[in-house]
């Protein structure tokens, strides 16, 4: 059975929980997407931009020193950090911008947490000559000041959201309000496999290039499929992008890594599968951190991109059907992994991706040397250098 179904459901998860004002726009988007994705011209154009502008395919790099250091499975890094703008987010932003050309809307809006998706959207807006406004929580603007300036350099307006926890979910709420108000002229470039149908499906499809490439690359390098895939999960677009092409390969284990913050037992985390239960937030039914009355909990993570109370609905479906396992690592473990990858491989991962590396540190030594593991290095760490310095108590 193909998922999602026609109503945008991944089993019980997903759906379209939005104000009626947005329903026509979602139905139009779905219709345009379903029609356009099959057009040869669209696919050719998408391939062109992914190759010539984003720089795909990204390498699948064998991390020799890290493998040796951990003493277990062979570790391959899918180098999404080498995409133009420094993260996988651009795969989706390009895809949606090409669709917008078909819908003839002159204005883009987006939310951003870590700033990666905001930068990617600002970038394609500049490249396609579209007006662009990015919503960002003021707490995240402080954590990711460099990305804020990058978006402004690219000609976008960055609007701070000073509500709630001043992070990603507040930015999404504000972007949804803007979209509700300006829906006739504006397309909302959602950045992860979240929100109302067709977003989780469409964004998965745009990101699935990651797994398609990785599958081909590992077959070329090792002559076989990997034993395990590891990726961090905020909304979950880089993870779904890697997992999707392997979904039917039943022997390939998949592990999603959530933000454990100060530890799941502390309550200050964003581990939805450890501490949440199904509910509805911002358009979709999915695992959600909430209290007994259904009020959404505040979350915490050192990584702005993982600091979100809900998770993509397809991940909830993978969790429920046991297709993937979900675990979490703490802020401290992620920071240690950041250092480790920098020193062993000369690669600084984004703090989001450092969560996936931290899980590799736990997982690889338990595997045989003959086994193969792919980890999605979803973004580069340059944007986090100032924050890491601050945490280490270093004044730059």
């Amino acid at each position, binding site marked *: 059975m193909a998922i999602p179904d026609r109503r945008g459901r991944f089993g019980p998860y997903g759906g379209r929980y939005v*104000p*009626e004002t947005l*329903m026509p726009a979602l139905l139009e988007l779905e219709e345009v997407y379903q029609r356009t994705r099959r057009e040869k011209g669209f696919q050719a154009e998408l391939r062109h931009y992914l190759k010539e502008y984003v720089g795909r395919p990204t390498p699948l790099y064998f991390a020799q020193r890290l493998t040796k250091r951990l003493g277990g499975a062979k570790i391959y890094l899918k180098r999404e950090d080498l995409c133009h703008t420094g993260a996988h987010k651009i795969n989706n932003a390009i895809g949606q911008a090409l669709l917008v050309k078909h819908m003839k809307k002159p204005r883009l809006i987006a939310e951003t947490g870590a700033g990666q998706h905001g930068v990617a959207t600002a970038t394609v807006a500049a490249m396609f000559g579209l007006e662009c406004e990015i919503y960002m929580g003021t707490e995240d603007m402080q954590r990711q000041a460099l990305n804020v300036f990058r978006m402004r350099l690219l000609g976008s307006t960055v609007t701070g959201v000073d509500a709630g926890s001043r992070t990603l979910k507040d930015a999404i709420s504000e972007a949804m*309000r803007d979209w509700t108000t300006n829906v006739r002229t504006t397309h909302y470039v959602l950045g992860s496999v979240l929100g109302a149908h067709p977003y989780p499906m469409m964004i998965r499809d745009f990101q699935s290039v990651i797994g398609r490439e990785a599958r081909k690359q590992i077959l070329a390098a090792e002559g076989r499929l990997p034993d395990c895939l590891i990726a961090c999960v905020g909304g979950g677009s880089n993870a779904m992008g890697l997992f999707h092409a392997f979904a039917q390969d039943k022997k390939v284990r998949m592990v999603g890594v959530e933000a454990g913050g100060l530890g799941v037992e502390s309550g200050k985390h964003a581990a939805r599968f450890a501490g949440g239960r199904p509910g509805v937030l911002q358009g979709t*039914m999915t695992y959600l951190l909430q209290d007994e009355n259904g009020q959404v909990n505040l979350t915490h993570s050192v990584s702005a991109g993982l600091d979100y109370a809900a998770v993509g609905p397809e991940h909830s479906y993978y969790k429920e059907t046991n297709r993937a396992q979900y675990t979490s690592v703490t802020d401290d473990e992620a920071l240690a992994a950041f250092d480790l990858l920098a020193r062993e491989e000369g690669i600084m991962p984004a703090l989001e991706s450092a969560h996936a590396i931290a899980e590799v540190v736990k997982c690889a030594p338990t595997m045989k040397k003959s086994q193969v593991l792919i980890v999605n290095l979803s973004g580069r760490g340059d944007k986090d250098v100032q924050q890491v310095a601050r945490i280490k108590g270093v004044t730059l």
Partner: protein
Amino acid sequence: MNRLDQTFSRLKTAGQQALITYLMAGDPSLQETEQLVLELERAGADVIELGVPFSYPIADGPVIQKAAERGLQSGTSLRKILESVRHLRISTQIPIVLMAYYNNIHALGEAEFCRLAVEAGVDGLIVPDMPADEAGPLRGPADALGLHLIFLLAPTSTASRRAYVAKESGGFVYYVSITGITGAKLHDVASVGENVAKIRKYTKTPVAVGFGVATPEDAARVAQVADGVIVGSAIVRRVGAHGQDGRLVEEVGAFVRSLKEAMQPV
């Protein structure tokens, strides 16, 4: 018979339109919300809409967002609101509609919510982030218990959405007068009238207009084209301004009285 149906039918016979007034439950406290409900009825409100405070109200503008924060701070929950409704039913039979985001209902359980709501004396339910397409789990229990599910239509709605939503909506159809969030400004009453007429082609259910109705003049103009006038942010703003100064009930009552007077047929 559902109190909403009774009220709309009585008003129709009298050649009048319903004044539907919104309060955020628990702003500043549930006890004051109860006092306000009774005062609104005395001031001429025909239907009371009670907002259930939610932490991420995506359909609401800043005025109602702040009210929701105040409501949450006062410890308000859906269960406590239902207790308040039950308490109010000792003194009033005014139709009461809850406006709640889906997750608060889901957390209680859809069937359990319907049972508790009807038992308490709730007549209708509006879920701003639940289009009719997603109402499945509520439909069975709501119909069985006689709880109206009220759906929204918007200026962006297509003919096929109008046909579908008008048919699904019970009690009244909530026409959102502006493309936007609650509390935005209403400019074009003529196009509101045209859209209400388009909705009426599909249903005999009354059509009420909300979002953007802020003044007695707005209410008077909208009353000429619809069966009901919904006022939310303009009332909630006054609750916010007078929540702590002892003039709360008096000020809000006077404003609602001015709305009702403006709606009287000349």
